[in-house]
């Protein structure tokens, strides 16, 4: 058995993993919420089924069957089952515990992954190398020859196939060259997605929030650890959570009232993960308290926009909203992004059917379970097309990657944007107008 959390923070309070899994009464009300159950009709691919399978292992049942692994590894961790569950059984956390118990990710992958991610400098260099390869057309070769998987970076291979962009400069490098406020109104914590893949998203967040909330300040931090958490290395995830907290504490101490400022994150998956830091630190009273303080300050940028008066955006055509799973289910944010889109796009904002259905991105899922992922993606794109959207707003890196690929392949009329990009466009237009009139 690998390292497990053993205890989870649930809606009903702190519980052992076994108690949390046993809270599932098998009512089955989660089944139609589960994208993999709807796609396959298999009980083992449903929230209820997965809870029962993990519970069986916890009760000493056999853990060797290949389908058990598959049942757990096909979970998107989207959390839709938890939203549908009256007792809010945290199935995604339970599944992750199950994966850890089985050692679902090969040990060496886990180690290498953590090794690289724990060393931001190395990660930076590896990525720059990879992007250079991509530009040189070598990346296909690199992934084919297994170079990336040798580094434990399969998800980079995914990104390579799925992402057109290969930024030559990372977000943090760019932000460091910009003036930093000594009296900020908010902190910005750069997630790996905006930092390494979509600097445009981070710049848009900075642009929009600077205008709406006043100056911001970067907390230069390592990866939030979500990747390690999902891939089974709880130790590395905990280590990263503490490093992030320390970086925040240091930065907050430099600013008057810094501990009270919101810590804005513009990837919903990372925001949800950082909000759950206390769960990673339950065993250590001191760290637990620090994690709770930090988690209490973390805000998904989507929430922050909803509190600001927003100007309209000139964006032509229909805008629709794709709910990133860790925004809706991970953080329970439902209304905020909609009120933002209503403010900036007015009646051009149209809801798509099943906006809360997972797009199949889910981190490396698109890579590890291509067929299932693609089935979900096609359904999602169909729903986008059904409202003839020109723009799709989302709030997590993984959705941006997945939807960009899906739209390119199946519905090139539409483009996916991070919500920040839409708000930033609206803010820029207003500023231009002001500039013209004055």
């Amino acid at each position, binding site marked *: 058995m690998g390292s497990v959390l053993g205890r989870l923070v649930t809606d009903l309070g702190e519980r052992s993993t076994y108690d949390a899994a046993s809270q599932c009464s*098998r009512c089955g009300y989660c*089944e139609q919420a589960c994208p993999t159950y709807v796609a396959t009709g*298999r009980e083992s691919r449903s929230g209820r089924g997965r809870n029962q399978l993990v519970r*069986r292992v916890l009760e000493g049942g056999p853990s060797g069957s290949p389908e*058990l692994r598959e049942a757990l590894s096909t979970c998107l961790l989207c959390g839709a089952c938890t939203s549908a569950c009256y007792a809010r059984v945290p199935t995604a956390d339970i599944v992750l515990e199950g994966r850890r118990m089985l050692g679902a990710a090969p040990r060496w992958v886990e180690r290498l992954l953590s090794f690289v991610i724990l060393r931001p400098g190395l990660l930076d260099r590896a990525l720059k190398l990879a992007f250079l390869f991509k530009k040189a057309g070598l990346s296909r070769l690199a992934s084919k020859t297994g170079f990336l998987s040798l580094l434990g970076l399969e998800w980079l291979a995914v990104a390579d196939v799925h992402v057109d962009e290969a930024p030559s400069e990372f977000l943090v490098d760019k932000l460091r060259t910009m003036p930093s406020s000594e009296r900020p109104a908010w902190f910005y914590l750069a997630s790996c997605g905006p930092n390494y893949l979509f600097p445009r998203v981070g710049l848009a967040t900075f642009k929009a929030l600077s205008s709406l909330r006043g100056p911001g300040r970067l907390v230069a931090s390592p990866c939030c650890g979500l990747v390690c958490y999902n891939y089974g290395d709880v130790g590395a995830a905990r280590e990263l959570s503490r490093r992030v907290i320390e970086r925040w504490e240091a930065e907050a101490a430099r600013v008057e009232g810094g501990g009270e400022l919101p810590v804005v994150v513009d990837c919903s998956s990372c925001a949800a993960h950082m909000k759950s830091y206390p769960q990673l630190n339950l065993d250590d009273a001191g760290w637990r308290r620090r994690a709770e303080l930090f988690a209490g300050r973390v805000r998904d940028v989507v929430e922050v926009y909803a509190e600001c008066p927003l100007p309209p955006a000139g964006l032509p055509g229909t805008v629709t909203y794709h709910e990133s799973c860790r925004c809706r289910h991970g953080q329970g944010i439902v209304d905020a992004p909609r009120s933002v889109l209503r403010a900036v796009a007015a009646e051009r904002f149209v809801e798509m059917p099943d906006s809360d259905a997972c797009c199949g991105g889910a981190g490396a899922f698109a890579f590890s379970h291509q067929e299932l992922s693609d089935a979900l993606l096609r359904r999602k794109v169909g729903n986008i097309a059904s409202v003839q959207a020109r723009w799709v707003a989302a709030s997590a890196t993984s959705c941006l990657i997945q939807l960009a690929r899906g739209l390119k392949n199946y519905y090139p009329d539409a483009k996916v944007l991070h919500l920040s990009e839409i708000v930033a466009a609206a803010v820029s237009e207003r500023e231009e107008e002001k500039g013209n009139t004055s």
Partner: protein
Amino acid sequence: MRLDSLEPRLSPGALFLRDAAELAAYAYDAAVRGEPPAAVVLARSAADVVETVRFCAREGLPFTARGAGTNLCGGTVPAPGGLLLSTAKLDRILEIDTGRAFALVEPGVVNQSLQKRLEPLGCFYAPDPASQRVCTIGGNIGENAGGPRCLKYGVTVNHLLALEAVMADGSLERFAASDGGPDIVSLLAGSEGTLGVVTKAWLKILPLPEAVQTFLAGFDTLEAAMECVAQVIAAGVVPRALESLDKATVDSVEQYTRSGYPRTSAVLLIELDGPREDVGREAAVIEDVCGRMGAKEFRRASSASERDRLWEGRRGAYPATTRLAPNVLVEDGVVPRDKLPEAVRRLRAIGSRHRVRCSLVFHAGDGNLHPNISYDERDASETARVREAGMEMLRACVELGGTISGEHGIGLEKRAAMGWMFEPAALELFRRLKEAFDPAGLANPGKILLPPGSESAVPPGMSPILAPPRRELSQAARHVVERLRQSAAEGRGMLVSGSGSRLPRDIPGREGLTPIVTAGMKAVLDLDRGNCTVTVEAGASIHALHLELASQGRHLRFPKTGGTLGGALASKAWLGARDDLLGMRLALADGTVIALGGKVVKNVAGYDVGRLLLGSWGTLAVILDATFKVYALPCRGLPPEAVPVPLAAGPWQRRVKDAFDPRNLLNPWLHGS
């Protein structure tokens, strides 16, 4: 292993699962944790179901059909060593015809998916079980599911027009409710997959009501709330939902969601629907009755969002219980409406005697009680206490003239309670029916009925029956029974008729048959004005019955046809009769009297023999008396004349015949002899 030879027979896309983990995920339903099946077939076409059932028939392997597995009685827990046949991916809506008011669906279609497709077309499908966002139509049929709306619209069986099913021998058959002959559609509904597996269903759909209005009222005493219910019904108003919650439920709901329900000892939620004008008139009645009964915090809502708000507390009742402990036993007893206060008192006493956490939610309009008992199944002694309390609650319902299931089914959990309601002769008949359809006993064996002989936990000479004794047979009925007994003993064929108005003119071999005329049995045995039920003998003339009831301020929903009530039922002269038929007493060919159903308006316990007799033309048994719903106001919009459908004796009708009357003594010419 021989099992694997099934896999190549399945269509592409169908799954054949053998892995231990996959199987473990099919060991349970929403109530019972059992043992994994030997294999799982996830069918993709009706042909897969045929192949699988044929394979099982050949290999002597038991099989259990399953939809979403959200049922609450153990009905889809696999048979030991058997195969599990999932219809979850037979999930196409094949046709919706709003003009002819039906939807044709596959069994795996989720109830709510159908509702969502119908709504923009201005229609709805009435059954609305609490699990409707996940449960499947196939499962609804298997358990004969209900829901709050069934007070007005009836349970699943009332909405089945026709079924395609794979029978236990693997043959693919179609049955329509309008077919001549015994109503096999009604028999299959609620049969929990023990007779066959449904592969297509033609469902009745209804136009969305023009107006809907919802009311919420608190009452200081349960009695006042129930009196309010009785008066609403007595005033001729049939709401589409009439729900009640006790204070324990409201208290636990408040911890889960802010419903703002009054903290009185009982809360009523009443919902009307229909043409705007009717709803307006009925709303005035509701307001008036609630006012007179001393309702506290009376609220009303018309817009969808306001109505949602009023429903919040009711909808939160089950969720709130699931948060108190890991597991919830949702019991499902029914009592005659006027026995509700007494039932609630008894149920509470049972709950506290067994020290279980119990809150009560009930469909007050039809007397269907759902005690929700929370517990942790990992605590063996608590679980035992809870199970015992649950069974005792059902026992109380039966003692009050009620039933052990209104909408959840019998499955594994309540088999032992069947003997409290049904005489051994009735259970024996159920068993013969099962054998007639499934001689090898492979279709979901062990459900509904205990294995033969195992229910005799009662000392010899004592009856296990807990139901209050039925009214004695009348002189005329005893006479009919006696004539049956004699003729059967002598092996003579019999000509069963009412007034004879629907009998064919030429009956082969008429001279040799002993006439059994039911027209002499014409008494109204019981008119329960408060409960709105009538029990009447089969020989009563329909005209006379209408007049008699009208003079007492009650009305039958039945066309004013000629002949006797029994004749109209036996000839299926009025298909709508199945919607209001609540109970029946019948005599088999040898004079054995069997009582089914009773004064409860909702009852899914056992095979639906009462409805099966519709269209049987006296070939199965002689109807002695029948219990019907009656109404406070005359019923509108009924067809003036009904056309009886001649009996068409297909192979499955013949099997039914063999189960009832293997010697073909009753109206023998109809089955050829």
